[in-house]
């Protein structure tokens, strides 16, 4: 028998045994399926209060759930409809933290286009409010760093080392960090895009200058791959920069 509204039930709450014997009686069958209750037992009003009382979050109280923001949101419409600012506002205002947590994988995806804020008929500063929600969740360890922050760290490491980035290293290094298998040549350990398991858009991007015979571009890239571009007298500057960053707390000590 199918489960009605299956989309509302997380798989871990569905208990079902292939074969179930109780007191020697075989009770296997569809009816032995158990769905753990998903009743909301309380609101987390401290969480809600934190958002309502913060200076950039207080307009959350103005929302009347018309969904003008969500209907305008490019992330919702063209990327993943689980990203729903209107819904996040509702959940945060009641402190339904477990519901918010179900969406942590999409919650950082705001592209800051400000359509929601500009169009909101109630004057909710939607984008600010969502940032406050994220901050409150981050503070409680309910959501990790946003993905682009990890990229920023990766980028910064490269800049700190050489004063400049090298496109190929940055791009393929990042892809490798994301779990893609990058094939490398055995001697110089440089990436070989065409034998790597990478998305098609990246293969296309790499093959484009070859197809177009853009010799200058290819030569420059080859040079950079062999000799990592480096800012003049970077080593001296690097030491000063690291020291300052460590003192400011922007960099972990010895990092």
């Amino acid at each position: 028998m199918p489960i009605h509204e299956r989309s509302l039930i997380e798989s871990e709450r569905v208990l079902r045994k292939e074969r179930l014997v109780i007191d020697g009686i075989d009770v296997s069958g569809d009816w032995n399926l158990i769905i753990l209750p998903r009743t909301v037992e309380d609101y987390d009003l401290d969480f809600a209060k934190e958002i309502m009382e913060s200076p950039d979050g207080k307009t959350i109280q103005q929302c009347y759930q018309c969904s003008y923001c969500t209907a305008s949101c490019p992330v919702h419409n063209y990327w993943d409809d689980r990203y729903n600012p209107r819904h996040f506002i509702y959940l945060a205002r009641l402190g339904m933290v477990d519901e918010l947590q179900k969406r942590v994988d999409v919650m950082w995806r705001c592209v800051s286009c400000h359509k929601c804020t500009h169009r909101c008929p109630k004057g909710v500063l939607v984008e600010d409010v969502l940032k406050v929600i994220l901050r409150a969740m981050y503070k409680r360890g309910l959501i990790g760093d946003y993905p682009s922050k990890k990229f920023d760290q990766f980028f910064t490491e490269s800049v700190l080392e050489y004063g400049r980035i090298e496109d190929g290293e940055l791009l393929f290094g990042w892809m490798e960090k994301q779990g893609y298998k990058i094939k490398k040549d055995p001697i110089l350990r440089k990436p070989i895009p065409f034998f790597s398991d990478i998305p098609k858009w990246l293969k296309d991007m790499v093959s484009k200058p070859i197809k177009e015979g853009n010799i200058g571009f290819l030569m420059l890239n080859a040079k950079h791959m062999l000799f990592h571009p480096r800012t003049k007298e970077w080593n001296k500057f690097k030491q000063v920069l690291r020291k300052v960053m460590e003192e400011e707390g922007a960099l972990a000590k010895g990092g």
Partner: protein
Amino acid sequence: MAKSVLVIGGGPAGLSAARALGKLGVPTVLVEKENKLGGRPVLESYHTLIPRKMTPSQVLGPYIEDVQSNGNVRIMLGTEIEACEGEAGDFKVSLSNGEKLEVSAIVVATGFQHFDSRRKGELGYGIYPDVITNLQLEQMFSKEGRLYRPSNGELPKRVAFVFCVGSRDRQLGVTNVHCCRYGCALSGLQASEIREKYPEVDVFCYYMDVRTYGTWEYPFYWAPQEEYGVRYVRGRIAEITFNPADGRLRVKHEDTIVQRPAEIPMDLVVLVLGMEPSPGTKKVAKILGLKQDPDSRFIVPSDESGSNIRSNKEGIFIAGACKGPIDIESSMAEGEAAAMEVLNFLGAKVTV
């Protein structure tokens, strides 16, 4: 043709009809069942009236004074009508005190009664002391001036308003399918009053939709949220239970925005009562032969006339909540409109 006019009902509509007629020099008899003028707002000690946030004595006090001091108006308290004969221009009305009146026209302003929430057993009214009606909350404010849980006299940490109790409900039969019209706005006001006086109390309004029409939108829907931090939760409360472990109530509903069942702890639950035609309205409609809505039993205006003040019987005019849920200021305006219709009917020439 008899000269005087009978006004049945001494509430907002009846008062304003009698006041206007008296001021214009028409001999008027005002018959009121209870022993006090003012209708529900006065009899049941409302605290603050929507939409102008004034007290019943501020709004109705001057009307009562005007009626009482006007020599053209004869007030008969504790009196009901028992029978009516004759036709427009010459009605012969028998009263409960044995007196007989000869009147040319009648204004019916017999009003409404509050829904009896014991009829919704699943909401626990009459079973759990902390489930109260919005009328009781008004009286808590007006008589005792403080908010408390009837079970222990303490300030509740959380208050829930349950909208549409006895309204928009086919389960009660065909009689209560209409909207009460005032509930959303009054709840917004009561919730704001609670938050203003007790900022530490969290207030939740459980709604299906919020009908604060016209200019009521800002003061009774936006302001409660924006200025007072009242939370609106979408879902109709289906059951109220009591948890002895913590001594708190549970409001059982589906949050239809989150699409999850919920049983949220509450300390005080306020049922927002619907409006029904009062027993007086039903009785008077029967005696006078007035057309009623077949379902709700509210009196309906004549089909032939554009005016919604004229009943199906010539010479009988209807005003206020006997025609369906209505707010107090509209009710008073209808009373005055009825007075004008009466004058028009009498063919009176008003000289300035």
